[in-house]
């Protein structure tokens, strides 16, 4: 089971990310009263003090605090105190150790005098070595330890490169196998210096270092070499290791440079090519001009052609208008009695007369006759349905009206003419419609709801009510008309049932036949035969 929980700080960080308010960090309060109270509050319980307060307010005896808890607190305090003490002691010890090691390091860094050296050597030995050069050399220079120094305080820790440290030296743990007993401390600067020295020597001699040379390494370490190394140390180390680094670097660099050069060259060449092309193009202005000139000429030609076409069309249109005028002219019109089949005329002839209900006639319940706007005296053919107008008279009328209409010209006259035409057509198609029908229609027209006559000052509801009333009135009138119309309707209806073979059946037989067909049953063969025989006879 993977049980995970994160700390309060992390939780707060996450909450800040989400834009939630951070959880308040509990401040450590004095142990005596706060901790049990908070614990009890978290559990939803009351502390003893709070319970006591409540009990007092209720008039009950306050609860006594258990002594065990006091003892527990005392022991806890004791433990905490001991822990603190131990921690302090540990810190003290660590400080002391650090101080000791620092002192020893300082002692070792201090230049060794002849006297100090002499104290360590026995008198006899000193006397023996008195006349020899070696002694003097050794006395002047402190023998450097070939092996890493092991200090008492840093037990098992080997320190490299402490000999040339001027003051505070930064030591780092040297990489090594985990099976090694002790840790090794090294100085970065010392390491690099050592490498540099080794490298310089190898280069100087041009051969590998022998063991003897290694022994005398310190002696031959002259000031000149030191100066050189110092100068070299300031330079980046990477440059010094030419053997290892330079080859890779050089290869990479040359490759890169070559590539870059190539690229540059390519780019340049490309740009040059493009430029050349451009220049060549620019050098041939005639070509460009020729092209543009062609285009322009084409355009001009096209435009000229188009304009000509337009003019022609305009002329045609003008001519057509003139033609129309000529046609309109009654003098030029063909007055022969031949029929001209025209779609528009047919369409217009289908128009019914515009009926205008006059307010005066409403009171008398009389049907207004269709008015003709031209005011010409039209014979009342509508009132005499028996009289049929001959076609010749109609044609005469037509001619007359046409001459009247188109004599003045204009749309108004044309409309009047149309109205006339429609009137005539009505008279012509009189036989098709009965007078009763028309009367009924007229009545209905009269009863049509008149909108926006006096409804401006009314509210919406009132308007709706009025419309409803009008509609009801209209429906009633319609019903009356229908009744009137159907008053004389008395048709004779005779229902005849027939079977599959077309023979007539009476009601009972028809019912039987229908039922059998519906249920998918049929009479027996004998019965059918008998029936057939009976029918044949």
């Amino acid at each position, binding site marked *: 089971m993977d049980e995970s929980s994160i700390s309060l700080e992390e939780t707060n960080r996450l909450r800040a990310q*989400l834009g939630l308010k951070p959880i308040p960090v509990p401040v450590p309060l004095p142990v005596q009263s706060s901790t049990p109270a908070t614990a009890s509050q978290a559990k939803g319980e009351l502390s003893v003090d709070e319970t006591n307060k409540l009990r007092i307010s209720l008039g009950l005896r306050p609860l006594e605090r258990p002594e065990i808890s006091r003892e527990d607190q005392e022991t806890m305090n004791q433990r905490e105190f001991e822990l603190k003490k131990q921690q302090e002691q540990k810190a003290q010890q660590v400080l002391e150790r650090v101080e000791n090691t620092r002192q020893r390091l300082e002692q070792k860094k201090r230049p060794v005098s002849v006297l100090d050296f002499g104290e360590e050597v026995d008198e006899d030995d000193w006397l023996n070595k008195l006349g020899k050069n070696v002694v003097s050399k050794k006395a002047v220079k402190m023998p450097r330890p070939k092996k890493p120094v092991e200090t008492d305080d840093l037990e098992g820790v080997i320190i490299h490169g402490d000999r040339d440290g001027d003051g505070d030296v930064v030591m780092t743990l040297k990489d090594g196998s985990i099976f090694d007993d002790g840790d090794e401390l090294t100085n970065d600067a010392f390491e690099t210096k050592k490498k540099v020295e080794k490298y310089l020597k190898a280069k100087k001699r041009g051969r590998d270092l022998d063991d003897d040379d290694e022994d005398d390494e310190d002696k031959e370490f002259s000031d000149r070499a030191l100066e050189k190394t110092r100068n070299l140390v300031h330079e980046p180390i990477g440059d010094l290791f030419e053997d290892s680094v330079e080859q890779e670097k050089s290869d990479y660099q040359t490759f890169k440079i070559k590539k870059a050069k190539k690229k540059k060259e390519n780019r340049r060449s490309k740009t040059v090519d493009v430029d050349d092309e451009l220049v060549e193009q620019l050098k041939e202005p005639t070509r460009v001009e020729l092209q543009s000139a062609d285009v322009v000429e084409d355009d001009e030609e096209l435009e000229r052609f188009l304009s000509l076409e337009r003019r022609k069309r305009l002329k045609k249109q003008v001519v057509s208008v003139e033609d129309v005028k000529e046609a309109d002219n009654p003098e030029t019109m063909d007055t022969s009695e031949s029929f001209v089949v025209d779609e528009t005329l047919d369409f217009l002839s289908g128009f019914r007369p515009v009926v205008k209900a006059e307010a005066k006639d409403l009171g008398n319940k009389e049907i207004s006759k269709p008015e003709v706007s031209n005011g010409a005296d039209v014979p009342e053919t509508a009132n005499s349905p028996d009289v049929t107008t001959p076609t010749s008279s109609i044609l005469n009328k037509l001619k007359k009206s046409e001459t009247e209409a188109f004599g003045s010209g204009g749309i108004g006259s044309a409309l009047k003419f149309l109205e006339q035409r429609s009137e005539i057509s009505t008279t012509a198609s009189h036989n098709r419609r009965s007078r009763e029908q028309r009367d009924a229609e007229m009545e209905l027209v009269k009863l049509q709801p008149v909108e926006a006559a006096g409804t401006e000052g009314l509210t919406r509801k009132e308007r709706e009510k009025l419309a409803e009333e009008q509609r009801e009135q209209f429906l009633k009138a319609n019903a009356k008309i229908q009744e009137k119309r159907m008053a004389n309707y008395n048709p004779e209806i005779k229902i005849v049932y027939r079977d599959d073979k077309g023979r007539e059946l009476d009601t009972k037989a028809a019912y039987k036949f229908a039922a059998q067909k519906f249920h998918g049953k049929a009479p027996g063969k004998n019965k059918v035969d008998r029936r057939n025989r009976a029918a044949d006879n």
Partner: protein
Amino acid sequence: MIQVECNDRLGKRIKVKCLPEDTIGDFKKLLSLQIGTSHEKIILKKGYTVFKDHITLEDYEIHDGSNLELYYS
């Protein structure tokens, strides 16, 4: 501050520190940050009650140390 434990019975048991006045939605967001699952895919249950996002922990009477069932949609 309260600490609520969520268990998905599949190997995850997470303790989330939160406030009682946090909504279930906020709690889910905190939880999602701890387990790495999108908060939209987390379903918190207790018995047959599915906790709704807009209601606070204290309204659901979720206290310190409460255990919630963690499901994924």
